């Protein structure tokens, strides 16, 4: 077997193992309801994490996504509350803005050769600041179209629901997989992560790829913001604080290297589900105090990473 798939397989194996453990303790956790919730509740994170995966694959990072999610939500809510625009055209506008925002950051990163960490940190401040300027209060969204969208779901046996936003996330993952592994753009993304000088010498269009990757991440953050606004029917400038760190954690748990150039989109999906599983487990348990919640989340995170490393290490040794 090709060793590059090892981290991915390890992640999947650990996820299945963890789910089995949860199930043995709380049989309810295998109900379609919980599985459906897992998809719905983590849709916004999954979508953002897919965008983040592309950025991380190039060796970059995008800290702005949480703020962009909040901004998009507020933007949509403000427009829907104050104009008669149809939500779909508002969505298009929001996606346009977030994509351009990402592209702008990508452009700055490339032309001014500044570290992505800092450029996107400034972007994070800026997007959240813009959200504040639009409205500090949270604005409810009461458009009929939203109700229609929220009523789109498939009931699965056992009271579970596959909601629209869950479906959007799955579609995003599929698109992400195709884009990363089956297009030239995808190979350029991996190439950038392999080393900038070599990528340049091999004729990778560095400028275009960098800008596109951050634009893509901006687009995904915008989409995630739309999904988030459907999820909460509101726009709130303090929403989604720290989502970027959750997304990074999900991407890395999914087996992607932060130094770039190595990782899989499916891994990110699993990473997101693992994060969701940890939370669900803690809620099902329901006995932890606020502080123990944090400690246990940290501990489980550590366990997952350790198990994954261990599994990769053991199997790669077994091969020789």
């Amino acid at each position, binding site marked *: 077997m090709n060793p590059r798939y090892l981290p991915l397989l390890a992640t999947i194996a650990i996820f299945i193992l963890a789910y089995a453990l949860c199930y043995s303790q709380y049989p309810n956790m295998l*109900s379609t309801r919980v599985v459906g919730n897992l998809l719905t509740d983590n849709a916004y994170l999954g979508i953002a994490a897919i965008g983040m995966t592309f950025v991380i694959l190039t060796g970059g990072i995008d800290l702005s996504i949480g703020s962009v999610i909040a901004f998009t939500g507020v933007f949509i809510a403000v427009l829907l509350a104050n104009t008669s625009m149809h939500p779909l055209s508002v969505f298009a506008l929001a996606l346009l803005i977030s994509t351009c925002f990402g592209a702008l950051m990508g452009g700055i990163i490339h032309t001014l050769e500044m570290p992505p960490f800092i450029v996107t940190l400034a972007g994070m401040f800026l997007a959240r600041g813009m959200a504040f300027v639009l409205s500090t209060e*949270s604005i*409810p969204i009461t458009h009929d179209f939203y109700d229609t969208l929220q009523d789109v779901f498939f009931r699965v046996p056992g009271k579970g629901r596959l909601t629209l936003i869950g479906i959007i996330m799955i579609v995003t993952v599929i698109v992400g997989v195709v884009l990363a592994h089956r297009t030239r753009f995808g190979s350029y993304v991996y190439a950038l992560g392999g080393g900038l000088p070599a990528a340049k010498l091999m004729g990778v269009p560095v400028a275009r790829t960098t800008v596109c990757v951050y634009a893509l991440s901006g687009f995904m953050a915008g989409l995630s913001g739309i999904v988030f606004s459907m*999820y909460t029917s509101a726009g*709130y400038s303090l*929403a989604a604080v*720290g989502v970027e760190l959750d997304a990074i954690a999900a991407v890395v748990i999914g087996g992607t290297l932060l130094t770039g150039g190595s990782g899989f989109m499916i891994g990110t999906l699993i990473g997101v589900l693992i994060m969701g599983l940890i939370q669900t487990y803690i*809620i099902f348990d*329901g006995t932890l105090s*606020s502080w123990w919640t944090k400690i246990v989340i940290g501990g489980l995170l550590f366990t997952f990473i350790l198990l994954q490393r261990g599994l990769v290490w053991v199997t790669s040794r077994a091969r020789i």
Partner: protein
Amino acid sequence: NAQTIGFSQIGSESGWRAAETTLTRQQAKDRGIDLKFADAQQKQENQIKALRSFIAQGVDAILLAPVVATGWDQVLEEAKEAEIPVILLDRTVDAPDSLYMTAVTSDLVHEGRVAGEWLAAEVAGKDCKIVELQGTTGSSPAIDRKNGFEQGIADHSNLSIIRSQTGDFTRTKGKEVMESFLKAENGGKDICALYAHNDDMAVGAIQAIKEAGLKPGSDILVVSIDAVPDIFLAMAAGEANATVELTPNMAGPAFDVLEAFAKDGTLPPKWIQTESRLYTAADDPMAVYELKKSLGY
């Protein structure tokens, strides 16, 4: 058979909230309720997840301290569908009131108004320039307490807010921002009163005022909200003047309601307002401090 009740708490960002959590746990224990506690770490999305998990587990009732007013319709509907009563604690939501059983809250705007009215009465017609320490930008207590206070002083043209900046509800920021207020307003000589959206910021600001060589409580009047123990210490030392209580015991009334409902199906009113009591130096601060100290603040 014991009831299982899920409690989705916002987080543990302040002493007040820790006290609310402690009291809720205590009450549940006393009544033999199995409390499922979920800390959302200040994130609405985590609260929604928690609610969904509670529903999936089939709890008997849900207590929700919503981090923000909007965005609950969908998940509350799911709860309703599953016939699980939901009671809101300490803040309300924008959803139709058919979706929840009742809300046990104080009135945030009212709290601000009480503080403002106290100050207006205290200065009694003298000119007074006020600096304001806001809570976290965008959070509902910050918005409502600001509005309430402005309403409270609206009829008094001698009162005016000259500076207003966020102190993020924390002592450190409260102190830092107060330092800059003092610098900016002629070393503090122009400031007559401080209004802080919570006691922690006030406690920080009091230190800043002292370090600048002024006397909090007399050179600069200090009024704040929450009534946490530490502000009573300051009050006893004459460094703070007034605070408006936000009681951390929201769960008590909520459990009462649930018990009544379980017994004979009585439905409570849609809003159970807790008292917003004003404490001043006249209320024997040390005694209150001793009383409150053990409540888990």
